[in-house]
């Protein structure tokens, strides 16, 4: 017998949580891009500072969301298993290294990038560890969050610090990679029989527009490689579409697993039946 599984959209994490993943993702991506920029001869203090600011903004969003903000310090208590703790623990060294890069020596950006990479990875693993939400605990979530963070970071770098061809090429390449990962992610969800509400995400008009915008970002970045003055616009679009993607992933596609039974009970002399979720 078929069970139409009743799921619901999680409401615990709202646009404020999405803000952390968006700003934190872009910020950490931007610091990584700044490190790359430094290595290819385009150092940008402003980019590093912006990256730090975005990470701080993201954390502020989270602070606004938690139920007991005045004991937020407790977030550091579980590095053993919690990716949220780990994410939080990377923030002080990241901020310190970033500040050093801004204030003292831009070379500290390499150290900051190390922490930023960890921060971004923690964010990805944080979502992946959310086993109540199929849209998040899909295995392709980690590459998706990483690739979009990098796409956003490199894209924003193009806006802030100019568009050296190597960075444009990197941004374009990562944007394409993000698109590939996003498609793998979608297929993974379909294969995993994710909730209908989650899968419906991919047919929403907003998602179709976003997808078009992501492709437009790729086209604009490719056009910039061909000499057109579209790098900044492409970069900006890469950022905005990344935020859109995560915003939807966190607040609108995040359906629960629902409650699934495997058998109907035998009521007296009634034989039980195998139940197939649909």
């Amino acid at each position, binding site marked *: 017998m078929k069970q139409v599984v009743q799921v619901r959209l999680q409401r615990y994490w709202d646009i404020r949580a999405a803000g952390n993943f968006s700003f934190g993702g872009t910020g950490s991506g931007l610091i990584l891009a700044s490190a790359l920029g430094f290595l290819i001869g385009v150092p940008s203090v402003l980019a590093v500072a912006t990256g730090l600011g975005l990470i701080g903004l993201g954390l502020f969003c989270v602070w606004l969301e938690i139920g007991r903000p005045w004991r937020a310090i407790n977030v550091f208590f579980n590095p053993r298993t919690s990716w949220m703790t780990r994410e939080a623990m990377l923030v002080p060294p990241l901020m310190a290294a970033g500040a050093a890069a801004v204030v003292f020596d831009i070379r500290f950006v390499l150290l900051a990038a190390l922490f930023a990479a960890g921060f971004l990875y923690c964010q990805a693993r944080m979502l992946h560890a959310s086993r109540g939400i199929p849209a998040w605990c899909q295995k392709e979530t980690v590459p998706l969050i990483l690739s979009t963070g990098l796409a956003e970071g490199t894209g924003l770098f193009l806006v802030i610090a100019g568009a050296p061809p190597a960075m444009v090429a990197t941004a374009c390449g990562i944007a394409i990679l993000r698109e590939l990962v996003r498609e793998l992610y979608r297929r993974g969800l379909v294969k995993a029989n994710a909730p209908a509400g989650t899968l419906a995400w991919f047919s929403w008009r907003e998602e179709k527009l976003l997808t078009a915008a992501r492709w437009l970002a790729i086209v604009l970045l490719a056009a910039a490689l061909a000499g057109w003055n579209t790098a900044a616009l492409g970069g900006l679009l890469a950022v905005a579409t990344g935020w859109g993607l995560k915003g939807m992933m966190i607040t609108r596609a995040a359906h629960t697993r629902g409650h699934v039974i495997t058998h109907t009970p035998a*009521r*007296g*002399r*009634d034989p039980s039946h195998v139940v197939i979720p649909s």
Partner: protein
Amino acid sequence: MTALEARDTAARKLVPTLCYNCVAGPDFMQVIVEDGVATGIEPNHSAAGVHPGAGRPCVRAYGLVQKTYNPHRISQPMKRTNPKKGRDEDPGFVPISWDEALDTIAARLKDIMSRGLIDEAGLPRVAASFGHGGTPRSYMGSFPAFMSAFGPIDFSFGSGQGVKCTHSEHLYGEYWHRAFTVSSDTVLTNLVVSFGSNYEVTGGVCAVRRHADARIRGVKRIQIEPHLSATAACSAEWVPIKPKTDAAFMLAMIHVLLHETPRTSLDIPYLRDRTSSPYLVGPNGYYLRDPQSGKPLVWDEKAGRAVPHDTPGIVPALEGHFTVSEAISHLADKEVARHENAPAHTAFTAMVEHLRRYSPDWASAICGVKPDKIRHVANEYVSNACIGQTIEIEGRTLPLRPVAVTLGKTVNNGWGAFECCWSRTVLATLVGALEVPGGTLGTTVRLNKGHDNRLVSVVPGEDGFMVSSLNPTSETDWKAKPTGRNAHRTLVPIVGNSAWSQALGPAHLPWLFMDKSPDEWPKQRAPEFWLTFRTNPAVAFWDTAKLTRAIAQMPFIVAIAYTFDETNHMADILLPDASDLESTQLVPIGGTKFVEQFWEHTGVALRQKAVEPQGDARDFTWITTELAKRTGLIEKYNAAINRGAIGSPLKGKNYDFSLPTDQAHDPETIWDAVCKASTAALTDGKEVKDLAWMKEHGYFVVPFKRTDWYLYPSLADQNLRFELPYQERLMRVGEELGRRLHAQGIHWWDEQLSEYQPLPEWHDVPGRWVKAVVAAGKKPEDFPFWGITTKTMFYSAGNNSGVPLMHEVGQNVRGHGGIILNAGVAGKLGIVAGDWIEVRSIVAATRGRAVPVQGCHPETIVIPGQHEHWKTPFAKDLNFPSLNTVTQMSMELTDATGSGADVVRVCVRKVEGPGKGARP
């Protein structure tokens, strides 16, 4: 020190008490009281071996704490300041003192007493209505003694019928086998065929526990009903059926037993010896009787001749056609017909031949169930009956027939209910399963005496049957003039005239007659004084708009009021009574009770004051005593208590706890005496437990014999028969009633008279509701669906609709506050879950959110519960629909017992929102 005592501290204690908020009770519970505040309810685990529900109350009990501390409670007496009454009138209630309230009421009553309790039309000037199935009696303290002292009161204004009552079962069940309500012997049965009995919702904790145990044991329950209720859910099979076609299904089952299975599969000795099957029926349809003794004749196979049924040593023929040389028959009005060489057949043969036409193929076209499914159910029934098997209970060997047929409320109400009751009971007799272990049992009696043990009512009567007290229909004794506004003695012979009879008459007729009296009927005036307690007919009855207008015509209403509600909106005086956890009363428990309370103990339990009343609410016993004092009835009132009006008589063989009659007693004194007398009565005076003892222990019981669950042994011991299958007496009574009514020029009851048949004829039962649409000048095709209702456990009879906890947990169950319809049908109508839809009948419309489900017959929509409140705090903001709003209240849909059903033809459409709520 017991574990429970160890848990009591100075600040926290557990108070044993009971819940009797529905007819499936009472059930034990304990109130957790912390610093004088009730904070929770717990089961009374110490009663697990006594109470068949393991000492646990149902979900509603957990709402009693919120009920107690509801800030919307009326906390002091109030009076109306706006003389105009109506839904749109603000009553202008203002607080008054208890003295002013009681003096006002007493003055009214004394005025009535001075002018006579009966008005010019012969009807009581004072009326009273109480809610759900007599359960308010367990909350009204000593008020029954006041009513007894006062004199005639009209109890006929019904609080609601349909979903709250198994009306036809009450009347026919008690007539045939002392079964005010009917149950399967769940602890032993192997198969239950249930036509809509909603055990898992309305059976109370005892039924739920017994059926759950039975499921694990391996019982098979086949649930036949239009929608997949919780009971259908917990059954082995669900058979969707069109509403009001159950009788066709059951007649077809009997057909299968009589025409498609060998006779050896029936319980021949049972039919021959314990039923009227062998009685000989003459050519005029009446029994052929012995000319000398007047006793019905049977054909003795040994002697080859007709002899009186109780002739020793005979072997009556179960079936066959015979010629009887000399006999008489008793016709209507004591007319006697004489017969010579008369052709005769047995009652059983009459049934066999009558049922020939009702094949499964015939029924299939009516109820929408495939013929093979009907045959399957019938064959399961026969094959599980274990004909010939016995069981020993308490040293007595009894037949074991582990099959039962039970009926739900809509099946048991209105047209078609007689046929269903007859078929169910006959199905039981065919396999010898009526009133034997494992079979179909009655629970208790209300129209007969013996509320504590129905077996005492098994006394020989006419024709080898148990005695039955029908209302007289003879020319001399028939009550041409109604003595109550529902005319139960005039119109419904089978309801009798015991203390409960009036309330079991045609409960909606008084309301209908307030609107318009029928032809040749005395014009009825509204009662001058109407008292209501734990009832809200303005929501709980049909055609609520019409009913609300009728209530507004009542000149003086005293409402014992918990919060404002739709009925007490019309009241003149509101009196706040101490509620469930705040007042004291001794309540009988044990024995066999509605709905599935089969105990191995009997006794009394105390509903005690666990916390002080909120506001200035007072114990109902205090209110009553004050009224008795102020109306000058104190002596009669005390005498009534002494006589046993609120428990056991206070004086017995070995004890005397009588109260002095010349003075008012406080509630504690009264209940102390009742506690002592009741416990003494249970033990022949050997044990006397006072109020203090009862407060500590909660209940007192003595053993109740398991064999007393079954009527069969008493019948067998007295060589009596069940008056089945042939209804000779009812046919005669119907004929007499028709003559009486016609002599008065009354013809508006003729359809109802057609129900007095010796064997039921199918008469297109569902078609009556379609005809009602046509009669209203509308097109049947415009109302293509059946609207029905169902209860939910959270709102047994609606009296806790203002308790938020019930609403919250109710939301976990589908359909709560919504309108259930078949998902496929919803799809065709473009309706998705949560859409607002409107259900409209020829009466009115109601709106709610759609709940499309697979488990609903495509021709049916279901509106659970009784809601659409417009005054009750909290409930009024829920915007819930109600079938009552759209259900017709009419004479044409009233059956011979005076009942109607929660059934109505409706249409459904999608709408924008809740609209104007209950307004038609």
